[in-house]
């Protein structure tokens, strides 16, 4: 764990490392001191890296067989499903992989919310994460357009039309985005280009995200600053590598069930109908991972304000480190915040549910209340809570807590007594 003094053993290694310190980097990554009390919610960073790589690899393979043309896209997807060797497998991994990616990213984000990982000194990591999340949504949306089914076409129409809400220049922007006067072949080809580009932008941002993480080091469930390296930390390899690996395998089992046994359950049946500009589907719904924001969009009666509300719902997260005024990171020591946290989780789930339902009657009412609460949580509850909440005293270190022992310490003591 002495990365500063690292020096390769071999002469060749030294020669190389003096010119390009890749070995120093590798040494830093393996020795990287990590809090030893990280729980399984912390394994989703590794899982997300796996998801990204999987999407890129399967995506490249699909791109070799896919034809980005309005007249041939749907057919080329069927060609992949039927005639390309294991094409069905690659496509189902890619399609379900998107859902798995979002499942993991939501857990990752809500972990950060619970343990206050976005707070000083980790604001940049958090903001980079929000940008990655935004790019993921763009990539997923454009990817869903590529098979050129009914939901692809009409989803693209609805989402691109949102830009027409911009005063004065809106209509012009929409025409510019489409490359014509409706969603058509030029739209498809540019979406394909961008869908291919964005994952590599995400990859670059992920490198920055991890780099930024390695400056202050990981937050941890107790949420206190720890000395690194110390008895509170373990080297990344092998401790965290094997734990992340175990969690990843568990995740892959779930992933495999979707791919092999219900590959279409997360998609919409209408997307197996070839795009038809003359026939509008009864209900146009986005993929499940975008539903909460779709609900927010539809809950506002005015188009422009709806778009503003939807964008704000995401962008508000970027300023979260400054909206949350509490100095305590972990919700474990914030009894009131913990309650509000779970209410927020329920609120987002409800938004997702009503997003899938028609925007009328009771559903619309629920969507409006839930949208209002979403903003209330970030704009009022969080800032006020920081001043009003009476927090539980926090321990001084992971191994030496002030409050009669964490599970870790209790465990260690139990082991000692057994030996005696």
């Amino acid at each position, binding site marked *: 764990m002495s990365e500063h003094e690292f020096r390769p053993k071999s002469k060749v290694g030294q020669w190389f490392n003096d010119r390009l310190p890749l070995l120093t980097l590798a040494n830093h990554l393996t020795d990287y001191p990590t809090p030893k009390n990280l729980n399984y919610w912390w394994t989703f960073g590794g899982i997300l890296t796996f998801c990204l790589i999987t999407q890129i690899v399967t995506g490249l393979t699909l791109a070799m067989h896919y034809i980005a043309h309005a007249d041939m896209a749907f057919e080329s997807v069927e*060609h992949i499903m039927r005639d390309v060797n294991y094409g069905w497998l690659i496509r189902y991994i890619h399609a379900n992989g998107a859902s798995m990616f979002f499942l993991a990213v939501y857990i990752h984000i809500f972990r950060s919310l619970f343990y206050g990982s976005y707070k000083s000194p980790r604001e940049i990591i958090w903001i980079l994460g929000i940008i990655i999340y935004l790019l993921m949504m763009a990539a997923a949306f454009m990817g869903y357009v590529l098979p050129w089914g009914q939901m692809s076409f009409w989803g693209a129409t609805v989402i691109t039309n949102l830009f027409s809400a911009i005063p004065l220049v809106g209509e012009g922007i929409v025409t510019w985005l489409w490359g014509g006067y409706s969603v058509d072949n030029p739209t498809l080809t540019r979406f394909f280009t961008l869908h291919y580009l964005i994952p590599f932008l995400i990859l670059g941002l992920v490198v920055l995200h991890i780099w930024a993480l390695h400056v202050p080091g990981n937050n941890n469930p107790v949420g206190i600053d720890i000395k690194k390296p110390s008895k509170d930390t373990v080297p990344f390899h092998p401790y965290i590598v094997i734990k992340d690996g175990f969690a990843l*395998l568990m995740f892959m089992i779930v992933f*495999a069930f979707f791919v*092999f*046994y219900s590959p279409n359950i997360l998609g919409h*049946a209408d997307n197996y*109908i070839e795009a038809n500009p003359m026939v509008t589907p009864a209900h146009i719904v986005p993929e499940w991972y975008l539903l909460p924001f779709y609900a927010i969009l539809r809950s506002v009666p005015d188009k422009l304000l709806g778009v503003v509300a939807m964008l704000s719902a995401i962008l508000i997260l970027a300023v979260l480190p400054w909206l949350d005024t509490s100095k305590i990171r972990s919700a474990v020591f914030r009894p009131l915040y913990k309650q509000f946290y779970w209410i927020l989780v*329920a609120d987002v789930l409800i938004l997702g*549910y009503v997003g899938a339902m028609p925007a009328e009657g009771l559903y619309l009412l629920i969507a409006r209340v839930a949208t209002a609460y979403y903003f209330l949580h970030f704009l009022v509850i969080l800032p006020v809570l920081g001043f009003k909440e009476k927090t539980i005293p926090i321990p001084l270190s992971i191994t030496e807590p002030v409050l009669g022992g964490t599970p870790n310490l209790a465990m260690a003591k139990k082991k000692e007594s057994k030996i005696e």
Partner: protein
Amino acid sequence: MNAFIKFCLIISLIISIFSQSIAAEKVDYLKTDWSFKGLFGKFDRASLQRGYQVYTEVCAACHSMKYLSYRNLSEKGGPEFSVEQAKAIAASFEVVDGPNADGEMFTRPAKLSDKFVMPYENEKAAQAANGGAYPPDMSVLVKARGGGVDYIYSLLQGYETAPAGMILDEGVHYNKYMYGNKIKMSAPLSDGIIEYGDGTTASVEQMSKDVTTFLMWAAEPHLEARHRMGFKAIIYLIILTTLVYFSMKKIWSRIESEV
């Protein structure tokens, strides 16, 4: 943990209320045992072959199946006709090919490599011949309908006389399972409309089941391979996960911490 339990209770309450409210509008499809469901689900070969017969003698008069080729009929995991049978089936259809050396288009008997011949030249011709309604292509039909196989199976048996007070236009039929209950397709099946080669009684129920099985295969030709691979993949993952779990326990036992 307390908060978490409370949260779970609230969520399950909400879900149960909501699901009851949608259940009220949901249609109950007719149920039957599908051999291709489940971890080891496979197609019933005889049913697929009968289903092809129903498709080609009844449905194919109006419905195309443009993503399938005649070679698919003899491929593994499908109806598994012999190559000779598939060739004979293909040869019974005429396709337009060309241009030849003289620049002329010509017709010839279809080969294994040809796609299923379509009943109409194009979508417009199909609409013109069917009172304005386009008989959808059947290649992925099962996946393109919310209820999947159960929906198709029910629809084929869902023709009834319209309830009193419901006015149906010329050429529109009442179907219990169709969205809006109005369908342009007249009841395609009736008892004994075809004669099965294997002697099975061609009841509407039997034909519905066979043709729906065939449509499932048409939409998912690699379903059997997927199920087989899925089982192996998951078993492999479970074993590997177990091994990694114990390795992890061993590694973490070196320090005062738990995983």
